[in-house]
Each structure stands twice: as C-alpha cells, then as structure tokens.
C-alpha cells in the first residue's frame, strides 16, 4: 500500500497548477477549467483523507463537490457565452471597461 501522503502531494501539485493557470491564462474558459482542476485536486485530498481515517465522509463529500462543480459550470458557461456573444472574445484582458 502506498503512503497516503503521496496522494496529498499529488493533490498539492495539481492544485498549484490550477491556481497558477487561473492567474496566467487569459482565456476565460481556460481559467475556468483551471478552477475545475483545483476542485478535482481537492477531491483527491478528500478521498485520501477518507482512506487515512477509515471513514466514508470524505468520499461522500466528493460527490457534493462534483455536483456543486457541475452547477458552477452551468452558471459560468452562461456568463461566458453571453459575454462572448457580445464581444466575440473570451479574453479576460478585453473585459476592461470597469477600470477607472
């Protein structure tokens, strides 16, 4: 059996890739996918925690995270599509009207 700490390290790496991705990528869709990567890294932590503690709580929590992530996609894509239809661009750099 592998040491469960390895899963935490894997999750930390994925989470960091996601967080850096949100900060550096300019496309709203890609940035949003990076957020999803962060959520999935969390799922790994939850399942690993469930294994460490020998309970099912963490695994059940994973389902909640998945459902919430799906709901977030619905709302997020609605917003990104509507702004794309208006501007023909999903770049977050083009959305700059609110800077004063």
């Amino acid at each position: 059996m592998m040491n469960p700490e390895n899963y935490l390290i894997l999750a930390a790496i994925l989470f960091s890739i996601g967080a850096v991705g949100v900060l550096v990528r300019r496309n709203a869709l890609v940035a949003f996918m990076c957020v999803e990567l962060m959520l999935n890294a969390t799922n790994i932590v939850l399942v690993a925690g469930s294994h460490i503690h020998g309970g099912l709580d963490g695994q059940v929590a994973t389902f909640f995270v998945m459902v919430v992530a799906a709901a977030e996609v619905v709302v997020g894509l609605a917003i990104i599509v509507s702004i794309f239809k208006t501007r023909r661009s999903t770049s977050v750099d083009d959305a700059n009207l609110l800077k004063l």
Partner: protein
Amino acid sequence: MTVLEFAAPVLEWRALAPILLVLAAGCLGILLEAVLPHHLRFVAQMSLVLASVVLSLAFLVINWFRGISGVLAMGSITLDGPAYFLWGALLVFGALAFMVFSERRVNGGVTAFAASAAAVPGSVEEAESARAGREHTEVFPLGLFALGGMMVFLAASDLITLFVALEVFSLPLYLMCAMARRRRLLSQEAALKYFLLGAFSSGFFLMGIALLYVYSGSFDLAAIHDAVTASVFGEGLLIAGLALLGVGLLFKIGAVPFHSWTPDVYMGAPTPVTGFMAICTKLAAVGALLRVFYVALDGERWTWQPLLAIIAVLTMVVGITAALTQTDIKRLLAYSSIAHAGFILTAVVGASQIVPAGQATSAASIMFYLAAYGFATIGAFALVTMVRNPAGEENGLAGWAGLARKNPAVAGLMALFMLSFAGIPLTGGFIGKWAVFTAAWRGGYWWLVIVAALASLVGAWFYLRVIVVMFGQEPAKGTFVGSASAWTWIPVVIGAVATLWLGMLPDSVMQLATFAGTFLR
C-alpha cells in the same frame, strides 16, 4: 457488513421553517415563471417574495420566543442566538432589498433588470423584448435562493454544508449581476469578474475544508475543535487548512488582499442587486467567519489572531485610501464597504468572548455593527437608484453636484447615511464602531483600535466630501431626481429611521445582540 443500511434523516421542521420557507418560495417562483403569462409574473413573484420573507420572519420570532435551539438537521445546522439574530437581520435586509428590486416608476415603468439577459446588447432581439415590455422576473426566485443560501451559510455546523451553502448563495448572485437593463456590457463584465474570482476563491475554500478534514477526520465544527485541542498530528495541515478556508471567507467579506472584485462588481451590477450584495453577502460571510473561527478553530487563536490583525489593518488602510480618490458613487460605496469590513475584523481579532455581565461580546458587537451598517447601506443604494440623467442612473459624483437644491429630501437622507458610515455621533454607525472597538480593546488589541480610530477619522473625509458636493456646489446640468414609488421610499425611510434610532436609542438592539450571546458548540 451491511453497507446499504439506510436511516431516514430526521428534520426539525418547525425550527428549520424560516430557511425552508424561503427556499420553497424560490422553487415555487421558478414554477410560476413556467406557468404564468408575462403580464402576471411581476405581481405574482413580488407578492410571493414578500409573503415568504414575512412568514419566515414570523416563524423566526416565534421560535426564538419559545427558545428552540440546538444542532439540527442531523448535525448540519446550528440554531443558536447569533444564528437567530443574523437570520432576522438577513430577512429584514433581504425584504428591503427586494422592495428596491420591485421599483418600476423611476425606470419609466420597468424594473432595473434587462428585458432579455440572453439577447446580445444592441441586437434586434433585445429591442423587440424591450418594446414588448418584458422583464426578468427570475431575479426574485434567484434572490430568494441567494437569501436561503446565506441563512444556511451562517448557521452551518459542518464544513460540507458550509461549502454547499456558499455556492447556493454565490451562483444566483453571479447571474443577478449580469442582468442590468442599462450599461449591459459593464454588467456582463462585472458578472464575469465576480464569477471567475468567486470560483477561484471557492477552490481555496474547498481545499481548506479538505485539509481540515484530513487533519481532524471530521467535517463537524465541534469535532474539529476537539481535534485542535487534542492536537493529534500534522500542525502543518491545520495551519494550511485554516489559511485556505480563511481566504475563501475573507473573499466574500471583501477584505484586502482579496477585495479586488468588490469595486468592479458593485459598479457593474444593477444597483438594487448591489444593495442586496453589499449588506447580505457581508452579513452572511461575517457570520460564517465568526462561527468557523470561534467554534472550530478557537484553540488555534494564537495563530489566526495576528494574521487577521494584519488583514484588518490592510483592509482599513487600502479601503480608505482608495475611496479618497473615487469619482463614482457606487465605487466609492464599494471601497467604503471594504473599509467597514476592516472595522468589523478588528472585533473578530479581539475575540473577547467572556465578558462581564451586561457587556457585549465580540459577536454581539459585530452583530450590532452589521445591523447599523445594513440599514444605512440599503438606504444609500436605494437613493443611488433615484439620481438620474436622461440615459439612466447618474453615478458620477460630478453629476451629484448641488443635489440639495434639486431635491433636499434625497440629499438630506443621503447625507444622513454618509454620516452613519463615517461614524458621527447620534447615528447607528457611531455606536457600532464604538462597540467593535471596545471588543477589540478588551481582547488586548489596543494598537489595532488606535489604527482603526485613525482610519475612521481619515475615512470621514470622503463621506463628508459627498455631502459637500451635494450641498455646497452649483447644481450639475442634466441630472435630476427621478420620481420613485413607495418600493424605493419604504426602504429609504426605514433605513433612515433605523439609523437614527440605533444611534440615539441603541439599548434595545444592543440588548438583543447581547442576549443572543455566543455560539453554540
């Protein structure tokens, strides 16, 4: 081993009625959208919203009188004094905000929300739906879902409920931000920014939850408290989890350095929605922050107190210095709300929970502060919707010049709310500031109180600037005060009366907040 053993959850229907009513009315509202013809929807939705909130408030009061409390819904919601007080405040502010949602006269017979949010701005479809007098009455059920989510959020006693509630109230808010009737590009941009940053912060929030789970083996706040006290293993996990969870909560409160969404979103969102967000989101997030940090992470307070103290200082300083240079009233109020988040955080840092009888704890002083801040905020944003130019709302401060000569009532009431924000005596804001500073002082953070007092002194300057612009300058051309219906005036008048009442006779509300006491573990 029988894996498929299933025990039906036990729900305390009566105690949970305030939440269930609000959420059920939200579901019913969606159904009404599907079955009612266009011209009936507005009245039906509006009546449903107000009826459900009033009924929910009635249940809340009765339950509190009967002293119903405890951990409910299979250990996922804690109903205690602070939960009662904050739920009541949320419902009152929610009802007032929904009244501003219903305002139509000032906009020329339609609400402030887009005729068709899905149509491209400037397109034929948009013009057609505007001509047909369509309105997005979906904002009412969305608002109810947001309100219900906030109520669960501040009472959640396990971290999974906390996370789900966070999303339940955030997702409708993202959509409501995108629904302005005028200046739709700004509105959509605000929604995009709010959504991306909100999703980003909820990623951190969730990672914090997961790490706390790995540390303690439970999502339950009380169990985490026991684990922190017993300090089983992995201090690193605990501190990382605490910090990441804190990031998510501080983002919703709008504390520096997690504030960057606030001015853009407050400015781009439809003003009634901004008013709703400005107080209700802040109130729910502060409630949840208090619960998580005082109930679950109390044993770790030597770690988070200094960190939060630094964030409180940054929040006050950045909020106030940025507000000094703003030329847009909604942006100014956004930075002001950041500064107020800093003042609230001073009492959170103080964490004085055991106090002499009759004195206010940190939680009680923060609850009073939120009540005073909320009435002024609701009133101020309702007044912002009334100052107009031919194209729509006039948000530029230059357009507000000499407003007192055009409409002394509007200018005078705005001045009252500004004085309350600034913390001038005889307004609710003064007593609120006094209470939170006392709590911080008692907690041993006297230097933080001095910084906060200096900050609020500097902050008074930009609130006074708004008053000087309205009363001391020549009237600006092209700006006028729109004639609003009772739906705007009721929140404004209630806000003004409550601001004065909380300033002159604060005892009753202060006693209620003190009676609400501390959090149940």
